[in-house]
């Protein structure tokens, strides 16, 4: 199809445990599980000398490792690699500020808040808001609501 968009976002740890899965395309549950496993297999064998991009089925994964966590974005092959690589970093910096030095456990215990952060920054498979200041302001405002 004519679309250039994010197909899914995954956060996984080295052991393959999923810490966030956000799907922007219809997949059935078995397919999702397969994708999760394949992405893990593809990404974890790569080291720091490799690129942050890897072909994946008919798409590509743009990913970056932070400590034990892999942040992966699946996009179309013709899309802009570096823009998504930095979108990941931008997202990580927001998480870090919001959770005060984010760690893997924050994502486990506050899984429902992580979805809110994602929806502020990415929506419908597109980048929504890129300003860290704006996102944090919005998140703090929401945090104080009952």
């Amino acid at each position, binding site marked *: 199809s004519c679309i250039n968009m994010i197909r899914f976002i995954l956060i996984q740890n080295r052991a393959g445990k999923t810490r966030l899965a956000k799907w922007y395309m219809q997949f059935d549950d078995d397919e999702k599980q397969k994708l999760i496993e394949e992405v893990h297999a593809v990404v974890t064998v790569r080291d720091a000398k490799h690129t942050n991009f890897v072909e994946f089925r008919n798409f590509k994964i743009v990913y970056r490792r932070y400590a034990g966590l892999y942040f992966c974005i699946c996009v179309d092959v*013709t899309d*802009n690699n570096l823009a998504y690589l*930095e979108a990941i970093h931008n997202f990580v910096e927001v998480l870090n500020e919001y959770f005060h030095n984010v760690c893997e456990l924050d994502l*486990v215990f506050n899984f*429902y808040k992580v*979805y809110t952060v994602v929806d502020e920054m990415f929506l*419908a498979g597109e980048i929504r808001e890129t300003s860290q200041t704006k996102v944090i302001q919005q998140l703090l405002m*929401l945090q104080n609501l009952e």
Partner: protein
Amino acid sequence: MPTVSSRGDAMRGLAVFISDIRNCKSKEAESKRINKELANIRSKFKGDKTLDGYSKKKYVCKLLFIFLLGHDIDFGHMEAVNLLSSNKYTEKQIGYLFISVLVSSNSDLMKLIIQNIKNDISSPKPVHVNLALHCIANIGSVEMSEAFGQEVPKLLVSAHASASVKQSAALCLLRLIRTLPEAMTYAEWASRVIHLLNDQHMWLTAATSLIHTLSQLSPGDYKGCVSLAVSRLSRIVTSTYTDLQDYTYYFVPAPWLSVKLLRLLQCYPVPEEPAVRGRLVECLETILNKCQEPPKSKKVQHSNSKNAVLFEAINLIIHIDSEPNLLVRACNQLGQFLQHRETNLRYLALESMCLLAGSEFSADAVKKHRETVINALKTERDVSVRQRAVDLLYAMCDKTNSEEIVAEMLAYLKKADYAIREEMVLKVAILSEKYASDYTWYVDTILKLIRVAGDYVSEEVWHRVIQIVINRDDAQGYAAKTVFENLQAPACHENMVKVGGYILGEFGNLIAGDERSSPLVQFNLLHSKFHLCTPSTRALLLSTYIKFINLFPEIKPTIQNVLQNNNQLRNADVELQQRALEYSQLSSITSQDVLATVLEEMPPFPERESSILAKLKKKKPASVQVSLVGCFMCKDHATMSVLLNHIPVWVSLTPYLSPTFASVQVRYHSPILAPSLLLQLYHRPFPTMSLVFTYFDCAFNLFMFKNSGVLFENALIQVGVKCEFKEQYGRVGLFFGNKTGNQLQNFAAAVSLGPEHQGKINVATQKEPPSQIDGGAQVQHFINLECISMFSGSPNLQLRYQHSSAPQQVTLKLPVIINKFMEGVDMNSGDFFSRWKQLGQPTQETQKIFQARHPIDTEAARTKLTGFGMCALTNVDPNPENLVGSGIIKTKTSQIGCLLRLEPNKQAKMYRLTVRSSVGEAAALICSMLEEHF
């Protein structure tokens, strides 16, 4: 436990539960704890009707957590929907989250959910509006598109909505039109939507994504965005990093918005107004200039975001493809990156340069980097970088450097990663064919390819070398000599045996004069490999042997011995057994003349696109840059030919051969290709046989029974179709997919009615399809039809487009056939036969008796009849083997009743088909349409 409990909105019970789960030592313990929790939640939901909002939220959230752990959740959906009507943000949020993650779009609750969303979307509280918009964007079902396609645009252009709501509305709308393109009226909103680009707030990344998609769907309506996008881009690239404050990322002003704007501009041709064009060129120059400035930060984030913009600018420069200065500068910039210490940059530079190699202005500049690229092939650690180097070498290859590049690729192939070997083999095969200045080099290269990477040489590659050798008289002698030499190696690859077998079977006589390669030596050499080969190769060799009997009558007894050997005649493989038997019969009972005719040298293959090129395109549609012009096999390709991959044809004949060859039986490897094989087979040896159908006729016939599928496909374009019919009205959705990496230009699709359809069908198109289709993109086009009166055949669809400035034209039949306007009519036995009798005049009936083309199967025939549009009636005909059906063709001017009766004769494998209709022509038409299909 982290500091979560210190926050105001924390759900303590949830945190405890998550801790418990994490502390479980085994899977069993975890399941036990979860089951305990599920029982608890279930009892809370069932028992206490006055469960407060907080508890409901907490339990729904626990259920969500359990689901995310991978367990099935079969309750709680109603409670989640209840949360939506809460006034509290945190309760609403959990409700929406549960629904977005867990409720499928076809849920019974969807109506209720949509009602809640409707309430929230018109709420005065922006946070509630956003929750609702996010939920729509996350689920994005057709139902939602229908419900909100008209509402969301209003929010987007509202004077009162906050930037945050507008961002969400823009992307929500994007999701809705991706789901259902007709959810929104494009022209109506165009002006207001594109003027969002003038908005003073910098929330525009989302809006630009929306405008990008709208421009793809309806380019005419949105072309006004070009000049606004250029001004916006210009303001960003000329700003300093302090100007844009919140939107500056590591000293780069608004990198994501810049990238989006640059991508948007690639939807349109370069602006014609000199002022806009000049401003755009200035922007691109500024972006290139900034890359030469010393970095403002050593952080990788700074260079990454700067380069994200640069690479997108280069994509736009390539898209414009008329600014030589910019193209060469882009190439020089990328040349610097080729040796950068960052692997990412080396990779992207190789990838981007591949595109520059396709432009006449920068192709030479790219070629200057050949040494660096070859070096990358040898030294890069990451296979994906090496692969990009292969792609670039392939793209920069020309007559002057082809021998060096092919040699380097062959050398690398020996140690190349398994993952990319097959693709490399294809590329080497294509380059050596395209740039061969003499055939000895070509033949040598392909045989070397088989020697070093035999396992990765696909059928297409060895078929191709055979096609070329057969078509080129001057290559045949050399090919025969060389394959013979290669076969002498003690261990040679099975693909070599195949090529050798085929070529010697055709041209072994050209080297038979030399006693070192006498007929018997050739035969013994091939036969020494026979036992080590797989059945398909053995089958091919048996065909070589029968060809040898014709070429070399002196060794006929030796070969007959082999054919008549029990190893062959009683082989467990039926194919081998049959070939051995038939060939041995053929050689013993037919005269030398007949033998010579049947086993004549293969006729030249029709010129067509290289099947290997087609295969490579299939593997990597975007990266194939080599144009076909100049390939010595393919001068000018009729668009139809591409799909007809060639496969060698081996003819086998039934034992009792009649002189007219009426019982010729063809063996092909793949049934789907049968028509194309018939085409080749009948090409010369049997000139009296005419070719009656092509592949697409064959595919088209299937549309008589179905309403969607692929109508046409070649290497450039795929045409999908999806139709709906009701009464005399039809709506045909066409989907044109560009399979190449380049834009298809001057695209036009028009329905043409021949004289036989004038006045019988009315055609209306809502709007023209876009005049370009981007590489890899798909566009839609809808056609509305009305059937005025009965017609036969179907209207034509004419496609025209330009690919790499070569005009292409395809004429297709539109699957609009009279039976599409037929509706089945159910009736009982009494009604059926009384009507049958009423239509008893000879002009109202057509009857045909014909041989069954498919095994006689009542159920299958019933399904076909239903697909055709008739109602297949049960308990009507006294003989249950017979099939009866009835339907009405609805046209604007008349309604035509049709009755049908199909009577099989299983012994004779025959059918009798009788159709009666109030209009005699209709009966005749339906009868002729259906007779081929049972």
